[in-house]
Every structure is written in C-alpha cells, then in structure tokens.
C-alpha cells in the first residue's frame, strides 16, 4: 500500500475526503479500506473461515506485472517482502514482471517458499501470449510448481479505458470474465501441449471456460477430456455455478477460492464431501509436487 501511495500514475492509491481510493487503468476508482489489509484482521478471517492456511496472490487487476520493469520492480518487491513476513496462517503465490519475461523471476519466489507463480490472465489469453510467457511457464513446470491464472492485464493486453458511469461491478463481470475464459481456451488450444506437466489453477472457474465445452466441441474444438492437472477455483461463485462446474469437470478439479479482502468468503454449499474435496484433497494435489522431474 505504501508503495502504491507513492506512485503518480495508476496503479495508485490516493486519499481524498471520501477516504482511500484505488485508481487503476480501465476501471472506475474504488474505495479501499486499509484496515481490511491489516495482517491481523486477515489472519482472523482465516480462522473464521476455518482454514488452516490461506494462500495470498498479488491483485493482478492492479496491473503491476504489466508495468515497465523499472516501475514493476519496487512494487513486486514490496509485495513479496510483505507477504513473506506474514505468519504461518498464510502462504503466497509469487509474481513476475512481464515487460522483461526473465525466467529467473520464477526461481527467487520459489526459493523463498512461495507455492508457485501467479500470472495475469491477459498475459496468456491467446496462444501468442502463451508463447511470450513460455520461458516463465517452462521454468515453473521444471520446478514442479503450480501456476495460478488470475484476472489482470499484460503489457501486450492493456485494459481499455473505462467509460464514465460504469458500475463498480463492471470490470469483474466483463473484462475479468473475458480474460479468464480466453486464457482457459488458449491453454486448451496450445498451452497443455506445450506444457504437458504444468499444474494450473484458474481463478473464478476460469471465467466459465470449462462450462462452454459443448460449444467448443460444436465449433470444431476438442471434446472435453478432464485434465487431472487443471484446476479451477470458486472465487465469488456460489451453489449454482459450482454445481455446474461439478457437472462438467467433476469435483476433483475444484479448489476453494475467495476474493478476500475485496469480498467476504462464500461457503462451499454442496455438502461436506464437496467441501473436503475443495478445501483439502484437491488443493493438496494442486500444490504438492507430483514427482521429481528428470
């Protein structure tokens, strides 16, 4: 937050008579309650949600990974240092600047105990984007660590300027969904073939990408074959969409996710067995190295 408050261009936070505001490219200004980012409050939420451990990811919609390297570096360092200092109730995903896609950016967070790497969906929303990030993904795959795909822009896919008067929920229901859906289908198109062993978690049910499997097949794409190493998380979704995902993918590819602290957590409303799968069994499969690579 301190690093963001020192910036003069988005992403930044500013204080005015309404309190703290977050300003991003392509999104309406939104209010930020800094108390929601207090580590102790976050820790209490972890306990209130009956979690053993919560994994934090950088908020990719801020566009930090898409900034020029010299601007991204201090913000990424602040993020890594900040979450690395959290107590045992937390783990975290590493993040990498994309302007200079140096694969060594994968090694440093993993060496510090980060569980894997998160990447903005806009960076891999097309096969060409996957190619641009190929070195990063290959490094991650070789390290036997998972990838988190989260809504957010890349240098080559900037968010369009926001129109005046958009409701606050607009980005989350338009650009984010489109990015995630495109990233899912890009991975289906070429990503899996190029990275056959990479374990990938798509946030927010991959923007509904898997739910379009029939349409994909009808349009000449590959028929659905459930991939044991592709996971989707449930952030901001409830019983109806999660139930749809269970129908299409089965329960074994679902992982619990939340949008804390932007939103409160939602329950896993499909019974204790689904809860166990989403909160314990499946995250274990996602996060644990499958085997040592030769």
């Amino acid at each position, binding site marked *: 937050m301190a690093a963001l408050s020192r910036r003069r261009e988005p992403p930044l936070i500013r204080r005015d008579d309404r309190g703290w505001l977050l300003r991003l490219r392509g999104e309406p200004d939104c209010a930020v309650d800094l108390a929601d980012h207090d580590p102790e409050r976050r820790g209490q939420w972890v306990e209130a949600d009956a979690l053993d451990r919560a994994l934090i990811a950088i908020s990719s919609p801020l566009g930090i990974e898409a900034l020029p390297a010299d601007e991204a570096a201090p913000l990424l360092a602040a993020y890594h240092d900040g979450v690395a200092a959290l107590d045992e109730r937390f783990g975290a995903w590493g993040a990498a600047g994309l302007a200079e896609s140096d694969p060594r950016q994968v090694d440093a967070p993993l060496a510090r105990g980060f569980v894997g790497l998160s990447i903005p969906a806009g960076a891999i929303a097309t096969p060409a984007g996957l190619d641009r990030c190929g070195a990063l993904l290959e490094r991650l795959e070789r390290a036997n660590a998972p990838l988190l795909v989260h809504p957010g822009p890349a240098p080559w896919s900037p968010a369009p300027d926001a129109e005046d008067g958009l409701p606050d929920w607009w980005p989350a229901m338009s650009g984010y969904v489109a990015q995630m859906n495109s990233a899912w289908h890009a991975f289906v198109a070429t990503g899996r073939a190029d990275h056959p062993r990479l374990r990938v978690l798509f946030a927010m049910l991959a923007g509904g990408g898997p739910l379009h499997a029939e349409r994909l097949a009808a349009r000449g794409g590959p028929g659905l074959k459930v991939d044991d190493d592709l996971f989707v998380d449930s952030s901001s979704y409830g019983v109806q969409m999660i139930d749809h995902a*269970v129908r299409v993918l089965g329960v074994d590819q679902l992982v619990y996710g939340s949008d804390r602290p932007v939103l409160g957590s939602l329950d896993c409303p499909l019974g*204790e*067995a689904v809860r166990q799968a989403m909160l314990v069994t499946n995250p274990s499969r996602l996060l644990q190295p499958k085997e040592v690579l030769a």
Partner: protein
Amino acid sequence: MSASPSVYPEPTPAEMRELVTRIAAEPDSWRHLVRHDPDRRTYEQISRDGPLGLWVICWMNDHDTGFHDHDISSGAICVIDGAIKHERLVIGGEPSVVIYGPGDSFCFDASEVHRMSHWGDVPAVTIHAYSPPLWRMGAYATDDDGTLHRHSISYAEELRPVLPDRRDLRASSTLSGTPKAATADASAIKAPGRRSTGTSSPSRSKPKSGGSATR
C-alpha cells in the same frame, strides 16, 4: 428441419455394458487404482470426458451403498474380482436380488433405484461406466412411518466421502441433514428418527454362476 447430431453422443446402457466388459479385460488402465480399505469402499476415477465417466470401485466387509439413483445418468458395471449383491427396490415387497460374480456385467438406465453391496468373503473389484458422468444422485431413506424420502446429493457425497476422522468433527446439525442415512455403512451419520432403506433383510439368492445378466 432435420435433427442434428448431439455434440456429445451418449452411449446407451447396452453399449456401456460392452464397454465395461472390454475395459475389464484391459487391466493396465485400472489395476494400479485398485486399493481395498476395510472401512469403506474406495472409488478411483479412470477417466472422465464429456459423455462418459469410468470408475474402478473396490469392496470388502459387506460395504453397502444403500438404495440410490443416479439422477440423469445411466450406467453399467462389470465385476472383476469377488462378488456383488445387486438389489432393486420393490414397493410392498422384498427387493429383487441378484448376485454377480467375476466376469458378470449388467446395466441400468437412469430411472432405476438400486443398491449394491459386497457379497462373500473375497474383496471385490468392479468397473463402472456412467453417462453422462455422475453429477447428482438420489439417496433414499424412510421415516418411522415408512414414508420414503429422496435426498438429492452431489456425487461427491458417495464417491468422495469425508474421511472418518473428520466426520467425527462435524456438527450434529450437519450430520442430521446428511442424506446418507440410506447407506448401511454410514450408520454413524444416521439421522435420529430415520430408518435406512438398507436395514431390511432381503431374501438372499444363491450366487449367480458364470455368464452375465442384464437387469
């Protein structure tokens, strides 16, 4: 306008029966998934795609599903090892019972209400096909007055059950609402005032020998 072919052509129950019989003869695809647990059936998914889910299920110690249905899924089963008792619910009478042994197969459509349990002393292994892949299931239980209740459950309740040591931690209010009261091996979570449809004593048939039977 002529009908267009389905995006995901779903196999018929008879086709699935042929499929599970064929897969039974290809142990490389499932043998590594065979794992017996004295306390529960084990379920391992062999594969899942748009129209079809394939599972290998291991049974011992009279493991019992209770009466259930598969919502909109049809299915087929082939017995590899051991024996399975298959019961179909009969209103006003004892269940219809058939024992299936190694090499036997059978299929069912989505309308069927049935129950399967381990039979005999030899641990059993079965191959199952479901189309469309399992999603929701119906679990059946009766009240003290005999009224039948169907509980809609995620297939995970049946095939990805909570581990026993975690079950003890669950709040009683959750337990009483859990519809697995219809399964005999879930007696720990049987709701007060409810009687499992699995508690009656069906007439026992002699183990069926050889061949196959479509029920």
